[in-house]
């Protein structure tokens, strides 16, 4: 008998049932009568609730990123590649032990410290692509303001330095990959890193702040093989510093970026 690993109670009241068709057998241990029975959350009802992932929409129209990213690219990238990953992920989840994990948990768990399981590629791609669409906005680019700019200048020297490092990392990738600006939890500073295939800083426990897709499907229709133009246009015209600010604010709940204020007696 295999006990379902992911039976976290859902306190908001909606039933979370097992995606597997195997029932939890009550032979091995008796569930007491006043315990919440996860396999039959609402006795008497005939349905079981299952939930899967769906394709999230970018927060702008598909042609809003013209002329730096054409409508055709966004349509195919989002409508076909991202969609395909979502569908494959859902197909895996029908029989996977990771049903019920959040996407971030699944990415970290399926990465399995370097020997990725079969769900890793699709879950990580779905997460990364969601992140990517939200990292961009129409009329984006230019300079960040306030705290974000301060943090970047603190960790990279100057903003131009950051742009150079980001571009260099992006162009250093051979084959498909991503380039990330992320916040290192232990060192409490921002850094830039390129990764291969579908890997993201989630797998090593850090907090991504900007993600740029360097797979060829992201830029080939618009820029053919001119990757530096693609990255420069992303940094100058597309990157959403608003999202960056929101993400940094959230990250501050996990990482103490400022100097600790030690009260003086």
């Amino acid at each position, binding site marked *: 008998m295999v006990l379902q690993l992911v039976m976290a109670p859902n306190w908001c009241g909606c039933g979370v049932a097992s995606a597997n068709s195997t029932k939890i057998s009550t032979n091995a241990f008796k569930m007491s009568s006043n315990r919440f029975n996860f396999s039959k959350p609402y006795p008497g009802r005939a349905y079981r609730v299952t939930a899967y992932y769906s394709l999230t929409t970018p927060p702008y129209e598909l042609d809003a990123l013209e002329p730096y990213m054409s409508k055709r690219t966004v349509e195919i990238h989002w409508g076909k590649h991202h969609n395909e990953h979502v569908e494959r992920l859902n197909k895996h989840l029908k029989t996977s032990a990771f049903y019920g994990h959040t996407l971030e948990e699944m990415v970290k768990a399926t990465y399995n410290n370097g020997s990725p399981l079969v769900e890793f590629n699709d879950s990580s791609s779905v997460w990364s692509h969601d992140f990517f669409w939200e990292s961009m906005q129409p009329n984006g680019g230019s300079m960040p303001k306030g705290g974000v700019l301060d943090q970047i200048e603190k960790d990279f020297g100057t903003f131009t330095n950051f742009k150079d490092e980001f571009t260099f990392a992006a162009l250093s990738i*051979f*084959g498909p990959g991503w380039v990330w600006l992320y916040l290192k939890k232990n060192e409490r500073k921002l850094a830039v890193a390129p990764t291969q295939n*579908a890997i993201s800083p989630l797998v090593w426990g850090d907090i991504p702040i900007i993600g740029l897709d360097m797979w060829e*499907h992201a830029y080939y229709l618009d820029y053919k093989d001119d990757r530096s133009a693609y990255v420069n246009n992303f940094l100058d015209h597309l990157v959403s510093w608003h999202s960056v600010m929101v993400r940094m604010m959230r990250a501050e709940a996990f990482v103490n970026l400022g100097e600790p204020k030690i009260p003086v007696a």
Partner: protein
Amino acid sequence: MQPATACASSGLTIPWLRRCSSLRVKCSTSQRAHCASTSTADTAEPIEPIEPIDPIETDPEPDPEPFKLKPLPYPFNALEPHMSKETVEYHWERHHRGHVDSLNAIIQGTEFAEMELENMVLTSYNEGNPLPFFVHASQVWNHDFFWETMKPGGGGNPSNVLKYLIERDFGSLDELAKEIQNAALTQFGSGWVWLAYKAHRLGVGNDINPRPSKKDKRLVVVKTPNAVSPLVWDYYPLLAIDVWEHAYYMDYENRRGDYVSVFLDKLISWDVVSDRLKNAMFRASKREKMEKREMLLDKMKEARLRVKAVDLRPTPKARPKMKRRQY
């Protein structure tokens, strides 16, 4: 006046040796004869000693382009409408040429510049720990191979030995196409899909064959990531399909499956694949013979070392000893 210099071997005094007194010279027999007959001089003027010539000639200028971009065997628009002129042009001119240039830049002046491309791929793979120029060398080789696998008006059916082996190892051409499709669609990211001839018992576990067998000398379908090729696993590649996105994105967008099926139906040159198979089988059999011979020699050597020499000859008949003759 300088003392007469003596020949180091014969001890004869030779007047002309005075001219190159910095050298320790042994005169040859002919010269001995010659200089014995002439009686020059003590009147000869001493000449400056000759600088010894460096026997190793100075290296010529390193060739700035050890590898040249091989031209396509057909014009850019020859593969229309299955592979557009734009794709072929960009693929060859920008990607393939880019790798050639990068490779030249890295290996120029090093010992690798003299190597053959295939050797360079194997050496730089370094058994899984690739040197920095492995990707470029391998991509140059892969792309050369890829362009030659295609031809305008390609497709059709394989014949002769290739057909026999496909039917023996896959069942039918359709089964082979299905395996290749599957490999292409499951290759996450960029890479290549190959049909290879496996002739050495190296179990890397990467080969896909619906009729697996412990026997060797069979066709297998393999998929490789990024720039790797089955040369590094000691296979003989027969056909290559580039599944990097730049190879099909402009024509097929994300439909990799369609690209691969059109490749197999309309672009592939089965003649070239058959030739490669013939070549592969020949090389494999030659190599097998050599390996067997070496194994046999090793065994013999071991046997000689292990076994004490026992003289099983019958004892010679007792004969009267012969007297030694005196000269």
